[in-house]
């Protein structure tokens, strides 16, 4: 089976004035379609950095990366944006919903923005997704009227809107209590199983890692036991 993500020798050095911080020192990472992978490591070990590189939000200082068989280093900013829009989904620790839009509109956003408007089909899909994350009774709520856990579930639904092959989640349960976190985790496992979506989840949480299909640990800028 062809790998969904193939990263080879990814290096990332941040420069702040004269000070260089080498965060990633040649990371190799391969994700197969349908995997649910936990990315572990001490705080500051570079988890978010690696996730951003794989999510095409950050360009590595060296290394090669292909996603779904496509080499992505050469893409322009606009092409990377289009790639993110069509093929990737994001879930962050802080949901960042658009506060002036309803739950449904937030979910439909990744489809509506490039299309120019929310079509009835988009609205239907957004509502189906909201029903699926257990928010059937909150579809027309403004984003600001939802609880933290509910917002995070809307964010998951939003990440699924364009049927991405790869979903990148950075501490998705980091700001939720145990019960809410459990729900979000179950949801991600369900999407992984049923939609065959591949997940790369950054987490500190052993409990989360234990329920993934595989774990990768970043240590001193390289991967242990990938």
């Amino acid at each position, binding site marked *: 089976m062809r790998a969904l993500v193939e990263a080879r020798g990814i290096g990332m050095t941040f420069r702040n004035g004269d000070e260089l911080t080498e965060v990633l020192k040649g990371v190799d990472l391969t994700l197969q379609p349908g995997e649910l992978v936990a990315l572990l490591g001490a705080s500051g070990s570079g988890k978010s950095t690696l996730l951003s590189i794989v999510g095409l*939000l950050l360009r590595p200082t060296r290394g090669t990366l292909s996603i779904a068989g496509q080499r992505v280093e050469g893409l322009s900013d606009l092409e990377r944006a289009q790639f*993110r829009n*069509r093929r990737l989904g994001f879930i962050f620790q802080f949901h*960042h*919903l*658009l506060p002036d839009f309803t739950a449904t509109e937030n979910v439909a956003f990744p489809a*509506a923005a490039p299309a120019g*408007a929310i079509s009835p089909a988009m609205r239907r899909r957004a509502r189906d997704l909201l029903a699926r994350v257990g928010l059937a009774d909150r579809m027309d709520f403004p984003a600001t009227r939802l609880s933290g856990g509910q917002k995070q579930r809307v964010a998951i639904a939003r990440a699924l809107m364009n049927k991405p092959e790869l979903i990148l989640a950075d501490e998705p349960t980091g700001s939720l209590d145990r019960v809410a976190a459990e729900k979000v985790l179950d949801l991600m496992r369900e999407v992984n199983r049923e939609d065959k979506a591949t997940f790369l989840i950054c987490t500190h949480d052993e409990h989360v890692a234990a329920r993934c299909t595989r774990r990768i640990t970043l240590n001193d800028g390289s991967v242990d036991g990938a």
Partner: protein
Amino acid sequence: MFAFTVARRYLFSNPSQTALLISGVSLGVTAFVFITALIGGLAIRLTNDVTANSAHISLEPETRIARVLPSPDAELESVAIISTFQRLQIRAWKSTVSLLQSHPDISAISPQISGSAFLVKGEAVSPVAVTALDPAFIDAISSISTEIISGDASLGADGILIGSRLAENLGLSSGQPVLLRTDRGIDRLLIVRGVFETGLQSLDERVAYLSIQTARPLFLLPEGITNIEIKLYDPGGARELATFLHEATGLRATSWQEKNASLEGALDAQSQTGTLIQTFSLISVLIGIASALSLSANRRRGEIGIMRAFGVSGAFIAAVFLLQGLLIGMVGAGIGCACGFALCSWLETLTKPDGTMALPIAPGEGGYLVVFLLTTIGAVLASVIPAWSAARLDPLEAIQQ
């Protein structure tokens, strides 16, 4: 366009703040309209004051001046002085008048004989500028008959109308005889038929009106006249028409603007002051918009970051802010124009105790289209900086903050 939907939501997201911003814009636009209408009204009033009682174009023979004639052998130059003693007159004035009568822009024509003379009453002698005109059209250029304070405006064959100050200086009143001595050295006893008062000292002290028939022998002009005074339907066109008439008749044509160059200067200075105020009111409007949108862009960093992460282009984000600027500008300018018009219309109705307008404001002269376009375009330009900074926001930084 989805950017438009987002822009609208952003504006409605905090209605009171948006309302405040729009009121600020409207207020600036209202100030602009007010000052424009005031300056426009003032110009109209001054122009009216100047043009109401005087000719818009005067036609006279070209003044004869010393001319330098080019000599064939370039070394020498000969100067030919043409006699200035010869009376300047328009002989073919009847054909000129009929030419003028056919011109659609001209509302009144008055052929005149103008000359210098003295009025003699006993020991008292006073210089006067005589204007001799057709008594049937005495009010063609300035409404003399409405300014008569004693007697009447019927000139007849031996009548003269004089100003109130002149009458006072010479101890004259209507019905009394007075001797007129022209610069041709001819004397004639005339009867003061009426005394007028225009309120302008120079006129009331120095001007006398005669019938043109009475004046002919006095100025030795049996057929010719000295000048033709013209009024137009639109005084604004005087300069252009004067040029045309000069070319058509060969006469010197002087527009009222040329005669009142100092008025033009004053109006220019005034409109420059106005431009300064207008510019400042627009700039303050634009700074308001730029700062409000910059604050909004900063407050929404997280959302903008997530939109970017989900593949929305920088152009989309920029459009969201440019469209907000456009909407604020258009709505603010629209409301401001309406308020400005209402304010000026109200001010126009205010009168001083004597019944004249308190402010020479012209609500029609508010420059509405100009201020609407300037504000709208300016508002879009003012949102370029916030739009640009929002568009180039690094999504990662914004999300992780």
